[in-house]
């Protein structure tokens, strides 16, 4: 059922991505105590990309400067996992804000640029939170960006209605005020733990 090349990519990314995270953690004396988050010590600089935000402006590390970013990967034609995660992030952000942390933002990176135009992303995200940022671009640029951070995805072939699903890493990245990857949440996660860990990591 699963496309074989996806498994290949997943294994490679597990080897280069997750292992390097874990090595990073082992090299450090004392990791932060979190409920579910994996914390990266030291934080990892995010690669620049050629992607665009839903308002048409370039997406770069400057988008993430001075903010704490929760970054999720998905596609708007996903009826279950993606809206569920966006709903969770909406709740997490409001809990974090109630704790007095105002500079948290959510970035949704599309892994389906053919259907997810900037306009489509704007419409989709406004359903959850007007401040959520959608990011899309050329497929090759999305692949390059996701590969650089160990995130994978693969498109299925269309069904009889023309609909196709996209398999993708179920990961939420935590990016700090300097635009560095500070941690990540691997599924399964719930909004309360995400909020509590983010408050903790934010410090």
């Amino acid at each position, binding site marked *: *059922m*699963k496309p074989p090349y*996806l498994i290949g990519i*997943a294994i490679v990314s*597990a080897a280069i991505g997750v292992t390097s995270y874990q090595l990073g953690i082992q090299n450090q004396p004392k990791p932060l105590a979190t409920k579910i988050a994996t914390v990266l010590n030291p934080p990892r600089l995010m690669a620049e990309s050629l992607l665009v935000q839903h308002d048409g402006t370039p997406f770069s590390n400057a988008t993430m400067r001075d903010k704490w970013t929760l970054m999720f990967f998905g596609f*708007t*034609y*996903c*009826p*279950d*996992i993606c*809206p*569920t995660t966006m*709903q969770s992030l909406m709740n997490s952000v409001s809990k974090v804000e109630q704790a007095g942390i105002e500079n948290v933002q959510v970035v949704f990176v599309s892994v389906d640029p053919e259907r997810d135009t900037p306009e*489509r992303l704007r*419409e*989709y995200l*406004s*359903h*959850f939170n007007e401040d959520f940022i959608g990011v899309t671009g050329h497929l090759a640029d999305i692949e390059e960006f996701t590969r650089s951070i160990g995130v*994978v995805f693969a498109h299925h072939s269309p069904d009889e*209605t023309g*609909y196709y*699903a996209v*398999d*993708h*890493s*179920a*990961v939420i990245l935590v990016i700090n005020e300097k635009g560095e990857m500070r941690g990540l949440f*691997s*599924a*399964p996660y719930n909004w309360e733990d995400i909020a509590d860990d983010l408050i903790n990591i934010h410090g």
Partner: protein
Amino acid sequence: MSKTNSKQQLTSLLFSLLFACTSYAQQSINVSEAWVRIPPPGMQMMAGYGTFTNLTGNTIELVDAQSVSFESVGFHISEVVDGISSMRKLDSIILQPDEPAVFEPGSRHLMIYTLKYDTQPEGVQIDFIDKLGATHSVEFRFLKSAPE
């Protein structure tokens, strides 16, 4: 005038008989907290959830789902395997007696395509067809997120 009235009475009697038959058929399955996620604007696909309970003493296998309100309804499951989330079709749902089958976000769900109306109603009926050909009708509410 009275002719019209008796005609109306007859029609309503027929309707209630029909309704009685439908609800009789419904009794073999109960779905609690049945809801359909309100899709974001412009989105034509959505997921439905609920807890299915088989009220009979026999196994019920649901092989199809349909609704006059939607273009199509099917059974799906989302899974996260090795950190990758994916979704696939399920051919049928087996309901064992006294063993509730949970459809919830991030797991089993009804995969629903295209509401046929311009305005979203408060609720919709979805009909489930079992292997023996019996229909089980369930009312679903439209909600933005899971009921508390």
